[in-house]
């Protein structure tokens, strides 16, 4: 594969060599990621304009996967920062390794250690943002589920995303040698601040249509027949329209298709195989109760 070559830091050339969203889309397909044209355009613009890309959408539509594929495509390492409630700068930026610093002072015994020695890279624990800032051509940053973090952290990110600099009081201000590729994802459990949306290239990811989902299922799960994939894709579409707490994502659809295929091989009955393996797709007791009366009609519709 031609992308593997670029691991030595020529990622910039690779970005430059992508001429159009269509070309980018082709490469995504070659890496077994089927996105829509909107995603290809957004990714293309994010790379060309050097802006962070904000992907929003329901859980399980492939936001994180898109970032992983982008990393593979550019031949760069993916550095992932998972956001959670209460995340703060020391988890995202850097921290000093106090224990090592103290040990170093004791080791020196009678000499007075100079400050420059103690606050050197050796004692700096680089967290994701700093890691990417130092090697923007070799790494891409994924800030996952920004909507889980607090408002304060969002404001803090804003600063980082506009200047790509980090200031460390003991060392000074570090800035990226080139614009790093950054992908942010959000499940939209709360609305992000407008300022953050403005800074980013934005793409709203919706669930794929039945046909593309069937193709994704066949790509991801070997041994699933085309007819099965299509039935699962249609059934999953029906399930999502039911306003469930946890509508099945693409990963669930893939698992459901493989589970049903396995059961069918041992028993040889189609609708029953789908029904018995529903637990793979629906993982919430309340949803199961809500779904039970309608499952048969959804399956019948999907099979027809």
């Amino acid at each position, binding site marked *: 594969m031609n992308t593997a070559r670029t691991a030595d830091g020529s990622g910039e050339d690779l970005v430059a060599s992508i001429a159009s969203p269509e070309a980018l889309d082709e490469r995504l397909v070659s890496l077994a990621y089927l996105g829509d044209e909107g995603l290809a355009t957004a990714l293309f*613009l994010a790379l060309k304009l050097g802006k962070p890309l904000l992907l929003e959408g329901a859980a399980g539509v492939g936001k994180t996967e898109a970032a992983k594929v982008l990393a593979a495509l550019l031949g760069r390492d993916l550095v992932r920062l998972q956001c959670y409630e209460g995340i703060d700068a020391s988890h995202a930026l850097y921290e000093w390794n106090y224990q090592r610093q103290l040990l170093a002072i004791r080791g020196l015994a009678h000499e007075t250690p100079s400050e420059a020695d103690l606050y050197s890279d050796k004692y700096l624990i680089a967290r994701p943002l700093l890691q990417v800032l130092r090697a923007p051509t070799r790494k891409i940053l994924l800030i996952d589920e920004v909507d889980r973090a607090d408002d304060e952290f969002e404001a803090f990110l804003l600063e980082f995303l506009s200047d790509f600099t980090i200031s460390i009081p003991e060392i000074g201000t570090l800035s990226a040698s080139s614009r790093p590729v950054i992908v942010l994802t959000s499940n939209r459990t709360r609305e992000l601040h407008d300022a953050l949306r403005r800074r980013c290239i934005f793409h709203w990811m919706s669930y794929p249509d039945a046909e593309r989902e069937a193709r994704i299922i066949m790509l991801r799960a070997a041994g699933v027949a085309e007819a099965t994939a299509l039935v699962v894709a249609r059934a999953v579409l029906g399930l999502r329209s039911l306003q469930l707490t946890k509508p099945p994502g693409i990963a669930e659809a893939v698992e459901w298709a493989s589970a049903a295929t396995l059961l069918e091989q041992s028993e040889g009955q189609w609708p029953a195989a789908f029904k018995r393996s529903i637990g793979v797709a629906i993982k919430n007791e309340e949803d199961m109760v809500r779904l039970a009366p309608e499952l048969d009609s959804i399956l019948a519709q999907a099979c027809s």
Partner: protein
Amino acid sequence: MSKQCIASHAFTELPPGVRQLVALAPFLRQHGFAVAPEQLINFLSAAYWLEARSMEAMRLAGRATLAPPPERLLEFDRLFRLFFSGKASASATRAHDELHSVAEPQADDSVAAGLKARELKGTAASNAELLAVRPMEARVDSQLRQFASAWVRRRPERKGFRSRRSKAGTIDLRNSLRQLSRYDGDVLELRFRRRQPRTRRVLVLIDISGSMKQYTEEYLRLAHTLLHATPRVEVLCIGTRLTSITDTLRERDLDSALKRASDQVADWDGGTRIGPALAELLENMRYVSFVRGAVVLMLSDGLEPGTPSVLVDAVARLARLCWRLVWATPLAADPQYRPYTPAMRAMLPHLSDLVDGASQRSLLSFLLGLRRTGEPAAVVWAAAKQ
């Protein structure tokens, strides 16, 4: 690069093609999309990179750079096409009307009108299913805006289960020790944790039957305000059926949110079946878990045809689930009002509050006082009897 300084030129000096792209921004703003200058620059740069190959590519670029809210993507697409097909520049307002006439469902006008006439003649709380689409007007309401900013500070809370760092509370041993190691054990600086308050969920139930007609719009505006000032809110319309309009109201622009809500709900100003609708709500486990520990705000006159047993049972269950069940009825504006209808009398023991829902001012000030728990409604109204 040239693409960066495009925006700094005077508008008239721009080449005509670019001028048209720039003019898209004010056009979109006129229709309630917030387009920042920064985003416009991104859009122009996108045109440079995509070499403006096709309208379709530019539309996708517009979506990516101008970031329209997801629930208005289709509207954005329509506006985009309208703008570049050339019709829009002549009359932006006409374009707006055109857009909304496209958005409205093709209801059979004569049937709707007929039903409407019947409804006006008949009793208010009838069971006639009216499929009328209601024209909504929105006006800027300073009272609501003030309420929103006050509400953010005074909305009901509960103690969260997870603790977070704070200035006082219980000692955070892990963090304190970490701090201690930083100074090699010399300086002991205690850190604390405390359970942080969480805002309670709010469920707004709006009765949209014919008898509540004059209030529904005001209630929708209130629901919209609450939705945008509270982390977790669910808004349901109760008519002849139960409709969730939460996602529709999520749109920040009040005007178009109300318009879309009025298109979405099919049974405006029809009859009421509050009881069955509430029972339907309680069958849906999603809503049941939402209601647990929440504030339930019922905006209805409580006029239910037929036997009230279904309604009373549902209300009793709802009251057991939620933290506080507030019933606001416009009828209570009358000082002579007493909850004497059979349904109301049976429900009264279950209600936390039964308040006046006719005057916005009193309803809003009541909501701001929600944190204080007062006497249950039954006690308050028993006192009022004497």
